[in-house]
């Protein structure tokens, strides 16, 4: 029987960073992947010949520079692309754009409201402060207040000192940012409804929250993790998309002696004396493992790989209760040329950061209500990435790709399934919304595809198609992620760990959960040897 010190289930970004760190620590590592490619939900595919699109996953995010340095990703070929901050288009043809240059950003806001322009520096300051708090906590295991070990108490004490050192204003801000709704928080800075809608829209994508829901303000600071010089934050992504990042990580795992096996689906975990000792593949093959690390979401990790009876009392229920919500559909369009958005000026640099078409806050709130009641959205919020603007190699010359994340699409409908007619209707809604601003849009389409949450679930293996593998709501973050008591990537099963985005820090940082999990495993192995 084949044997590895560590078997990693799933070659997603987190599985790969975990594998790379474990291999670097001298363990023999085997990654088993169900599909024929690395990158999990982040892999690219070809829509029509010559057009490459990322089927699922977000167009930009935060890759901690610490990981770029640790794995020497730059020298292995990874290039990060910085983009301007995006554009929002409104029904009446007006638009708001975001710029990383603070003066240009302020002048852009001044087109809508002089007062909002001057409020910008304060908003940017507060966002940067909150993003700094978050950034400090991304690359470490969350500190669980229920753990009473000496080192845990020591960390907590130093954190308490940090809090004690904060000014009252900073503390008030902290509570404000974690409890208010998006609209209430933005309303404390800005008066223009367009500006508020423009800033709220990107924060909502992928989240099962509406703009008026309490705690939705907490969705804003993560957008600032890539840093800012006083203007809008950079939107960063790897050149070639997250697929390129996965390929580079794959090379690093191999260079460190790790092995990756494709078309190998794990269906079962073998246990001996309540310890995970081997994985069983779909074809019946068994691989003996010193330890098993799962890059599957928390529900699949426990509810489909284990006999429920083997899990401690109540644990299966607790996992089943984790809120995982399908909320986005993905539509990819292959276009033979860039459609003419009549109301956007030529050469608008902010377009490379993406285009929001969602209308006013009221429209977003309405779409969220539709979603809650399992209706197809009458008017979804569209988050359109145009990756071909700064990476033309993704399409034939002149061609473009629109990767549209359609927000507020329910997993199940109140009256049945996503039938072909229902899918066509959603597709047409989206086309109409884009055509309203770019009348030639439909003529430019050479290929199109739609994935509703159920399709995302089938293809990428995210339960209910949740892009965050567990919603990033306050009750499911930090030491409560993935479930209370198991925030250190461990599980009730000895030698079985979870490293997917279901664990801290989830979707906040690419590959961080995997790297943290590996760190935790290496630490516990050292402890055992002593």
């Amino acid at each position, binding site marked *: 029987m084949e044997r590895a010190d560590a078997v990693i289930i799933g070659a997603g970004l987190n599985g790969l960073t975990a594998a790379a760190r474990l291999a670097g620590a001298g363990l023999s590592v085997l990654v088993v992947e169900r599909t024929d490619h690395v990158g999990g939900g982040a892999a690219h595919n070809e829509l029509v010949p010559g057009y490459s699109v990322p089927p699922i996953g977000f167009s930009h995010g935060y890759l901690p520079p610490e990981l770029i340095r640790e794995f020497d990703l730059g020298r292995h070929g990874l290039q990060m692309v910085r983009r301007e901050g995006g554009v929002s288009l409104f029904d009446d043809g007006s638009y708001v754009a975001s710029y990383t240059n603070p003066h*240009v950003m302020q002048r852009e806001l001044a087109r809508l409201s002089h007062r909002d322009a001057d*409020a910008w520096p304060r908003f940017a300051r507060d966002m940067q402060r909150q993003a700094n708090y978050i950034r400090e906590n991304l690359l470490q295991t969350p500190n669980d207040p229920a753990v009473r070990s000496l080192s845990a108490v020591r960390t907590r004490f130093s954190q308490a000192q940090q809090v004690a050192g904060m000014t009252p204003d900073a503390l008030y801000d902290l509570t404000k940012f974690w409890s208010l709704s998006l609209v209430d928080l933005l309303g404390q800075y800005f008066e223009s409804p367009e500006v508020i809608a423009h800033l709220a829209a990107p924060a909502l994508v992928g989240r099962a929250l509406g703009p008026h829901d309490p705690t939705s303000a907490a969705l804003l600071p993560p957008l600032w993790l890539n840093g800012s010089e006083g203007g809008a934050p950079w939107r960063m992504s790897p050149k070639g998309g997250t697929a390129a990042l996965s390929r580079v990580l794959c090379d690093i795992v191999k260079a460190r002696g790790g092995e990756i096996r494709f078309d190998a689906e794990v269906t079962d975990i073998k246990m001996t004396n309540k310890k995970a000792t081997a994985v069983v593949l779909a074809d019946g093959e068994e691989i003996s493992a010193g330890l098993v690390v799962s890059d599957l979401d928390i529900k699949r990790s426990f509810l489909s790989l284990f006999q429920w009876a083997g899990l401690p009392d109540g644990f299966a229920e607790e996992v089943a209760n984790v809120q995982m919500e399908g909320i986005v559909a993905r539509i990819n369009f292959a276009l033979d040329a860039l459609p003419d958005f009549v109301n956007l000026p030529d*050469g608008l640099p902010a377009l490379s950061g993406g285009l929001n078409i969602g209308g006013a806050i009221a429209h977003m709130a309405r779409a969220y209500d539709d979603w809650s009641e399992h209706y197809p959205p009458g008017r979804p919020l569209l988050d359109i990435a145009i990756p071909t603007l700064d990476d033309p190699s993704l399409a034939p010359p002149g061609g473009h790709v629109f990767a549209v994340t359609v927000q507020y699409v329910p997993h199940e409908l109140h009256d049945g399934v996503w039938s072909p007619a229902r899918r066509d209707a959603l597709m047409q809604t989206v086309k109409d919304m884009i055509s309203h601003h770019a009348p030639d849009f439909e003529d430019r389409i050479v290929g199109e595809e739609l994935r509703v949450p159920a399709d995302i679930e089938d293809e990428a293996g995210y339960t209910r198609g949740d892009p965050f593998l567990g919603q990033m709501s306050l009750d499911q973050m930090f030491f409560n992620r993935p479930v209370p008591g198991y925030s250190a990537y461990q599980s009730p099963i000895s030698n079985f760990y979870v490293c997917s985005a279901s664990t801290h820090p989830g979707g906040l940082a690419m590959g961080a959960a995997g790297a943290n999990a590996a760190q935790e495993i290496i630490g516990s192995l050292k402890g055992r040897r002593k």
Partner: protein
Amino acid sequence: MTEINLDDKDETEIVQLSPLDGMGTAPDPAWFEQPANELPFERYVLTTPLHLVAATESRTNQWTEWNGYTLANVYTTVEQEYDALRTRAALSDISPLVKYRISGKDAAIYLDRLLTQSVAGVAVNQVARAVLCAGDGCIVTEGLLFRLGETDFRLVVRSPHLDWMLDSAEDFEVGVEDVSGTIAAMSLCGPLAEAVLEAVGIEQANSLEKAQAVWVELGGMPVYVSRTGMMGGSEFELWADPDDAPIVWRRLLDAGRTFGLLPVGMAVRNVARLENGIALEGIDYQSGFSAPDLSTACSPFDLGQGDRVSLERSLFNGQKALTAIAKRGSRHAMKGIEVDASPGVRIEAIFVGDRKVGRVTSHAWSPRLQHHIALALIETDALGASSGFTVEVNEEGEGCKRLAVKLEKRPFLEFS
């Protein structure tokens, strides 16, 4: 676009030549003009109303940015410009300053609420230093307050905060308006500045006391002249309509030629304001409204400007926090230091023993003192040590070394 019809061309008309034709060619203002309705992204850095005349004077093409505007950093050489500023006269563009007009029945009451000092004692055509503090006592911005009339003020500050000023203006019968685009500003300083003004026909200059201002007419153009500035010595600031400003500038330069007047860029102005010991918002410390890291923001007490705060009066912005700071003292303080090092070194941190106790926020080589002078933000508990301060300097060819420094009183240079 204009169509050029060569047949109709007037023979006597001066042909607008290409800029490549060399000196003596009048530049076409259209090269610099900002088209109306220009979109924000079409130009990342704007030009001031004086850009065209400044560009004509530039022999170096060295520019710098301030508040989103392009300004000359060096026109000729740093040495020549410094000499002009300290021994003769210097003219500079300071248009990127932010200007607000505050007027109405409650203007004075409103300003009492906004500023750290009461404006009651400021007479018409008098100028007062203005410090605006946030609720936590940190300076939001600072600058000058001009009293144009009984109920009409102009506030000139370093960074824009209209939203906050409007919020504070609620319930007051007062109008707050950003008039930055309607006023261009020049600084004229140096021992012969007064003479230059007299030469262009502004005789009122010599009777103008410090912190006073007067409306004058220059060739039919209204210009507001104030005896203000931060370079030290004899200095004036001129406030004019953006259309008139280039002509005022031209006249001053022409009349000043006999006095050795030179246009002076930001590089030398930075040396001069350091010699005068002035710490600037946006350079030495950040506005309380834009500093993500609170340790880079300062209260007036941190800057040694406690005399610009009068606590014993009716409610004003930051009063509570400032009262507390006045009682318990500052966390850090802005101090002047002198370093015995040759020109061209970099100085960043200040130590006592091996402990880093502060940051050097700006430093420059003073040609007059033949010393490096610097401003440093130092932790208050380290200030008890009257000596033992060192800085790390990196000198070319000499490597990195520690040099002892002493705290100097500000201003570094005294002017009569």
